[in-house]
């Protein structure tokens, strides 16, 4: 408390302001917006979003190679590519990587980049915390992946599956360090998501442009908000479970030790209370993305906006009451099974509403089959398969046949690949010009799409059949004679088709970037889109918008370009180029970059390794982390030498009302606000 109060007192007297610049040798904040340093120390939500994307795509390659290894192993009976132990490690890491290091951070990439823009905000509420989430995610991701080689190649890799059921996860049955890496790695990643969730919730609730009521927010922003709430409530549960596991493994706590009277189902309940909302954490961002893409390429507003929002919220709520459907055969009593079975079925209702509303949006529209739109339609149809197979195993009796077979593997890949990942690719093609100032090539894009969708169906479609034929999940090999040969081979071929499709995406980036040099700039609004992010230059200028936007309508930007006549005709009233901000404003005060998020995050892996190998490393990690917190607190709100001219900006803000009491401080200098508000509160508290 006292620490926080000090700057406040110092600021009170003018003559001591000089001291406040560098208290206790704290570094001057980094400056500049070019060069590698400008990325490492940035607090700009757009750069953070892009970096989330880059790191996630890197992990996507790792997870993809793991998937290919799995498919190579299973292509023929009694595969010999991987040993049983390695296979268990690889399927575990494939799941963990794709869920925690690919889909979640890719959703975070879009959330970071787009959410403030769609709200008409300058940045997120807590820019430094935003950088912290990114670097903690990166630290956690590399920590987890380092298990692949630390202590020997594939010696200490998690091998208990992403669900990691006790007691198989105990040291008795899994004596390598692998599951320690799992427990600590996910713990670190959880910090990243939790910090980010709080940050984005506050941003959504407090930093919307004037006039943008909640029910004018774009559907993507709404879905992201729901996801952040799910994260906020789900992560503490897995945090607890991981702590129990870590204490069990490292310090003999016996939470899951059957010999000491523990019930291993405790882990399953904790894991799935987190794990089921997690499914919606993965899928809802994609629902949001295609809810932006489909209207633009149908030239119609989203059909039933309020139903779309309400069904998203309903999915979020219902998602908390269905976790035990992962445990229908775990030995719960028949009443629990029946109850969770029925509650699970009702998730189909809001999900069905969404699907039909997308179709209704396209209905009667003028449809342009851009790559982004193709991916979006891909989500509608492919996710439907995943949704329907989901209904078939919400029927608990049927699930006793289906669970833990390849039918389930097919199901969740149709949801996570067909739903979440295709949606994310749709988002890539759609927002690429906004992020980088050039469009991705459509011709390559279509190859990308068709290879990916065909490969996807070849890979995962046959798994439905394999599952119904009785092929168990998580088996490292199968014998000939069980009828598994044909479809496994088809599936493995499909995996390589997917791989080609994804490779073409990377080729496309390269090709498009080269071509862009010979093409005219895309302008602020290449798709004739609807939401606020298109109302500023492409790529988005560092300060987002030149002036604050006063929102009147849902799809405000569209309504600035087009008007609906009495007879329903749509007529142009303005061109995007004329009304969009050109990014030329100067004198916009922005939060300064900071070293501390990166330093703080870099301490966490040391603590992790320390817990597992040698407590002395914890001391190094602790020093980095605590030191960074110290530096963070004392960091001057802004570099005194920087010529932002923020006084003007503050002056302007004072006049405009954002609908939130603190908005003038929050939105122009959120980073200050973080500190000032905190110190004010602390001051008041201690005074009172």
């Amino acid at each position, binding site marked *: 408390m006292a620490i926080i109060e000090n700057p406040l007192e110092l600021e009170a007297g003018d003559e001591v302001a000089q001291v406040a610049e560098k208290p206790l040798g704290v570094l001057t904040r980094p400056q500049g917006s070019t060069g590698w340093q400008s990325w490492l120390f940035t607090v700009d939500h757009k750069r953070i979003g892009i970096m989330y994307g880059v790191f996630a795509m890197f992990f996507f390659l790792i997870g993809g190679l793991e998937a290919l290894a799995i498919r190579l192993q299973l292509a023929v009976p009694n595969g010999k590519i991987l040993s049983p132990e390695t296979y268990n490690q690889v399927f575990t890491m494939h799941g963990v990587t794709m869920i925690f290091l690919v889909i979640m951070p890719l959703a975070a990439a879009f959330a970071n980049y787009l959410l403030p823009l769609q709200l008409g905000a300058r940045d997120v509420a807590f820019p430094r915390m935003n950088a912290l989430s990114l670097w903690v995610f990166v630290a956690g991701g590399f920590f987890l992946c380092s298990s692949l080689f630390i202590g020997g190649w594939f010696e200490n890799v998690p091998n208990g599956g992403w669900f990691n059921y006790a007691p198989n996860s105990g040291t008795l049955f899994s004596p390598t360090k692998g599951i320690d890496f799992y427990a600590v790695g996910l713990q670190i990643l959880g910090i990243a998501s939790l910090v980010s969730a709080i940050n984005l919730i506050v941003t959504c609730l407090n930093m919307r442009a004037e006039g943008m009521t909640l029910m004018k927010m774009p559907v993507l922003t709404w879905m992201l908000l729901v996801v952040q709430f799910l994260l906020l409530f789900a992560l503490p549960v897995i945090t607890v479970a991981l702590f129990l596991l870590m204490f069990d493994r490292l310090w003999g706590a016996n939470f899951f030790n059957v010999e000491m009277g523990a019930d291993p189902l405790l882990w399953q309940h904790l894991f799935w209370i987190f794990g089921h909302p997690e499914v919606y954490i993965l899928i809802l961002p994609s629902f949001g993305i295609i809810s932006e893409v489909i209207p633009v390429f149908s030239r119609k507003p989203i059909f039933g906006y309020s139903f779309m929002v309400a069904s998203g919220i309903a999915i979020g709520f219902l998602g908390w009451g269905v976790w035990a459907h992962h445990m229908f055969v775990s030995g719960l009593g028949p009443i629990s099974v029946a109850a969770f079975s029925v509650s699970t079925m009702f998730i189909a209702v809001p999900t069905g*509403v969404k699907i039909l509303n997308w179709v209704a949006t396209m209905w*009667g529209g003028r*449809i342009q089959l851009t790559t982004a739109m193709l991916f979006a339609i891909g989500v509608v149809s492919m996710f439907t398969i995943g949704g329907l197979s989901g209904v078939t195993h919400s029927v608990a009796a049927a699930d006793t046949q289906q669970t833990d077979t390849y039918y389930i593997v097919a199901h969740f890949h149709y949801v996570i690949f067909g739903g979440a990942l295709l949606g994310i690719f749709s988002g890539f093609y759609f927002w690429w010009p906004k992020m980088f100032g050039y469009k991705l090539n459509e011709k390559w894009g279509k190859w990308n799409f068709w290879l990916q969708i065909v490969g996807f169906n070849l890979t995962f479609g046959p798994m439905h059949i394999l599952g119904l034929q009785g092929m168990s999940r998580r088996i490292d090999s199968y014998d000939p004679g069980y009828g598994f040969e044909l479809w496994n081979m088809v599936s493995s071929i499909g995996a390589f088709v997917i791989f080609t499709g994804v490779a073409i995406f990377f080729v496309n980036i390269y090709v498009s970037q080269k071509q862009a040099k010979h093409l005219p700039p895309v302008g602020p609004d290449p798709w004739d889109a609807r939401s606020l992010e298109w109302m500023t230059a492409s790529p988005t200028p560092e300060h987002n918008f030149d002036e604050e936007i006063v929102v009147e309508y849902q799809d405000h930007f569209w309504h600035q370009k087009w008007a609906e006549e009495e007879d329903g005709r749509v007529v142009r009233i303005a061109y995007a180029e004329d009304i969009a901000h050109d990014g030329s404003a100067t004198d916009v005060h922005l939060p300064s970059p900071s070293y501390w998020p990166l330093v703080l995050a870099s301490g966490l892996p040391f603590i992790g390794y320390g817990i597992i190998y040698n407590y002395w490393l914890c001391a190094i990690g602790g020093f980095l982390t605590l030191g960074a917190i110290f530096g963070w607190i004392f960091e001057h709100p802004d570099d005194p030498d920087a010529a932002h001219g923020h006084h003007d900006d503050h002056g302007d803000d004072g006049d405009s009302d954002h609908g939130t009491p603190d908005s003038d401080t929050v939105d122009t200098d959120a980073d200050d606000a973080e500190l000032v508000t905190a110190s004010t509160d602390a001051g008041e508290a201690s005074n009172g």
Partner: protein
Amino acid sequence: MTSVRNLSAVTKEGPENLAEEPSPRHTRGMRLRRLPLALAAGSALLLSACAGDAELDTLEPRGPEAETIDNLIDPLFLISFVVFFIILGLSAGVAIKNRVKGEYEDDDWPTQTHGNAKAEWAWTAVPFFGMAFIGVLTVFAVIDLNSEEANAYAVEVDGETMQWEPHVVVVGHQWWWEYRYYFDGFDVDAFLDEDHANPAKHLPPADIVTSGQMIIPAGQEIELSITSRDVIHSHWIPALNGKRDAVPGRIHPWKLEADAPGYYFGQCTEFCGLSHARMRMQTIAMNDSDFAEWVDQQTTPATLSDEDAAFIAALRAGDNPSPANSVQQGLVNIRQLCSACHLVEGVNHFDDVPEDSVDNIYKEANVGVSLRAGAAPNLTHFASRSTFAGGIFNLYNEDGSLNRNKLEAWLRNPAALKANDADNLQGMPNLGLSEDQIDDIVAALETFGTRPSATVIAETFAE
């Protein structure tokens, strides 16, 4: 079988409906509307046809429980197919029909519909009531699958007829299944009241202990009490019922029934570590007389010739008799090398000795603390099974001869055939046996129990 029949019946309808179309009143829309059904039926046929010869097929029920599930799921698959093709047809159809090539023109705007409350409420309500209907059916099925039928089955043990409520205690181990039969009943509740942390280690001695293959009388509902000694496994015989997890510390009720005598494949379906893929089991349903005969064989100690029995007696008396042949040398080896884990009634385990006798290593070990002690298959009637090593290898060749190569290879180095971590007490260790020792042990093992019938041996082969 039933599923295949149902689905193919529908398939026939599909093309017929399409053929009925020529009437001029029928518009393109009508034809499109029939299309999903045809496609759905076609896909369903594909699905069931592909699943036709799979040993673990979930769509070919062979007992009432599996039938209950199948009756529920077949219509659901069909509805799902129809719904999917409607959505696919709508989204793809609309996209193709309303497609604009090239850039949008300024006047290229359709009617701006923002929604339609009636339609939206409708497609909220229809799935809601549809799901409620399926929910009711599901609840009934769940109740049905968890109900117990009181039935008594006469079993003759040692000349004494007992009324057996068909019931088998199923114990999962890394990586094999143990089946225990208590013909005078096993009171699960009373046993649980004894409050053992890990009940699987404290199970009372049973009338029959076998592994890998559960033998049941056909046409009888068999109650199962499923537990595990180490990690979580899942017991699953798809043709007879869904699966249920074997969780250490808990005893889960489940049941299964086979309509007719037959050989039904199974596989552990909960990831249980290194050799999860190689943890299989089979259920063999027998007619009443075969089952009675099987019970009769299994309730006796190992079937030894008079000379071998005398030899064992001499060994027990500490006379150090010299083995007269390979079988007797094998018996010596088994007593010396295998007794730490494996039990063979009449060879290294006897009824007539005190509980704490060295010969009764098993009764002692069963309540022991180590993971391994008492945690290997009972070999008393080893030769009466048609698979070994956790239900994964066939014990007999197709011509009925012993699968000697495999068995010898197994004894030579178990981990080479089935991944294990014997150092960590998971799986059978490599004992470094000499070829002579292996030959002798195989010779002795071959005498343990009566061979299964030729039919069983033939059905053991997965096709």
